[in-house]
């Protein structure tokens, strides 16, 4: 049943022939894919296959570095992301990194609200308080930190820090959240908390998740992309891919022959 519902969902992101090169050496080659709204889409593949590179193209992070070039097109809700200003685009595309990276000079409260502060968006205190509480509740961190909102975020445990970083990305109510192995630095308990969270978050957001962990992809993703040597090898419903992979390379990866 859920599969048929997922089927009719509109794409929120569509990539057309996206290629990315470091110093003219291609790390991602001609990837075309449509990512559906309110899903968790996993990007899988062996180390070095270009997962992070593809993910970071979606919020135009590569433009911070001169040696990286991008070709092709990508659309967010039908609008070409390369026609928007990267600043605006990034507000629609939250990002969560592999290592938890709360701003060490800021309190928990200021970390959550950092997006507004950094962009110089003026808000009333009451509004800010609401945003902080809503975002921290969204990541199930509110009860744990509500009495220490003005302490430094770096005093939290690794798992709490990562949830704080997710809250920071949520505060702006982005449409898409890009996550690069968000649980790889966390212990199993913290990992399962974050995983539960992602499943809950897809009601309101679309999540693109790079992961090394196949069972994680199987547990929480609706769709999966399998990449190999910079190419998109296979894309489909996670269930189908895990039970019935089409490409032999996908099968080899899923059965642990490489990666």
């Amino acid at each position, binding site marked *: 049943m859920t599969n048929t519902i997922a089927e009719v969902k509109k794409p929120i992101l569509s990539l057309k022939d996206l290629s990315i090169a470091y110093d003219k050496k291609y790390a991602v080659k001609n990837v075309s894919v449509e990512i559906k709204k309110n899903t968790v889409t996993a990007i899988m593949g062996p180390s070095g296959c270009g997962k992070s590179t593809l993910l970071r193209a979606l919020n135009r992070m590569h433009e911070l570095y001169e040696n990286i070039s991008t070709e092709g097109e990508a659309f967010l809700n039908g609008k070409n992301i390369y026609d928007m200003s990267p600043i605006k685009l990034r507000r629609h595309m939250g*990002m969560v990194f592999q290592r938890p990276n709360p*701003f*060490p*000079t800021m309190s928990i409260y200021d970390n959550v609200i950092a997006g507004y502060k*950094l*962009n*110089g968006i003026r808000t009333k205190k009451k509004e800010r308080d609401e945003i902080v509480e809503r975002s921290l509740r969204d990541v199930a961190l509110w009860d744990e930190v509500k009495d220490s909102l003005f302490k430094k975020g770096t005093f939290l445990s690794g798992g709490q820090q990562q949830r704080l970083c997710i809250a920071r990305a949520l505060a702006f109510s982005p449409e898409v959240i890009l996550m690069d192995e968000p649980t790889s630095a966390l212990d199993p308990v913290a990992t399962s908390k974050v995983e539960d969270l992602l499943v809950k978050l897809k009601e309101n957001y679309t999540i693109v998740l790079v992961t090394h962990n196949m069972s994680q992809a199987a547990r929480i993703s609706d769709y999966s992309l399998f990449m190999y040597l910079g190419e998109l090898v296979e894309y489909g419903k996670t269930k189908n891919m895990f039970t019935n992979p089409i490409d032999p390379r996908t099968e080899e990866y899923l059965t642990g022959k490489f990666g």
Partner: protein
Amino acid sequence: MNSDKITKTVLFSVSILILMLAAGMLYSLVGGAIPAFKEFGLKFIFSGEWNPTEGEEKYGALPFIVGTLMTSFGALILCLPLSFSTSLFLGEYFRGTRVARILGLLVDLLAGIPSIVYGLWGFYVLRPALIEIGFGGRGFGIFTAALILAVMIIPYATSLSNEIISMVPNDLKEAAYSLGATRLEVITSVTIPNARSGIVAGYILAFGRALGETMAVTMLIGNTNQIPTSFFGTGNTMASVIANQFGEADGLKLSSLIAIGLLLFLITGIINAAGKLIIKKMN
């Protein structure tokens, strides 16, 4: 005894020797300063009189303490905009590029130029230029000295802050960019706050250098022994009065100069320790 033990013993003795050298220096400074402090008491530090006339000799360190603080703070303020923008340029905007490497080398080169060369340049180039733009007093004075000092301490302030700024983790900056921050916002809200204590330490160490810098200052400050009344007037620093007068000094005057040396030693010691402490705390 095995060779490891010998090495250890030798290294230990050498470090003890250096420690004793420093202690001996402090001891002789204190010894030399005692007559001045015996004669004038603590008032030596707060008195502005410097009268070497025989029979009515009176010495106070205040004019030189004030002169030192004025030139050093002046130098710090003059150097700040230059070195701060340079370290942002090197550590953030052009980090890792060839331009930054070459400029970084040139800045470090400034640190290697001997004080006397700065003094000569200040005397024969800077001073005439200041007179040209309407500077009184033949171009000598606190401001002239502060200007040359500012150039001399730029490398110290710059290289530490540049290093600390370029050490701010990239993933913090990327986190800020991913929230839609512009480059300027990243610099003001992430880079500078995270590098703040290192930047402050850099300026404290640079200030410490300025306090004791002697040769160039002596050549440019005008060498007068009254409490300076204006930033553009002449004066003397603690270091420059010693350099200027130790040759012909004896008795109480010599002891007073040594006492000034002792004070300078203590002040720079404290300033340097504070800077190093901040750096240590950061790591």
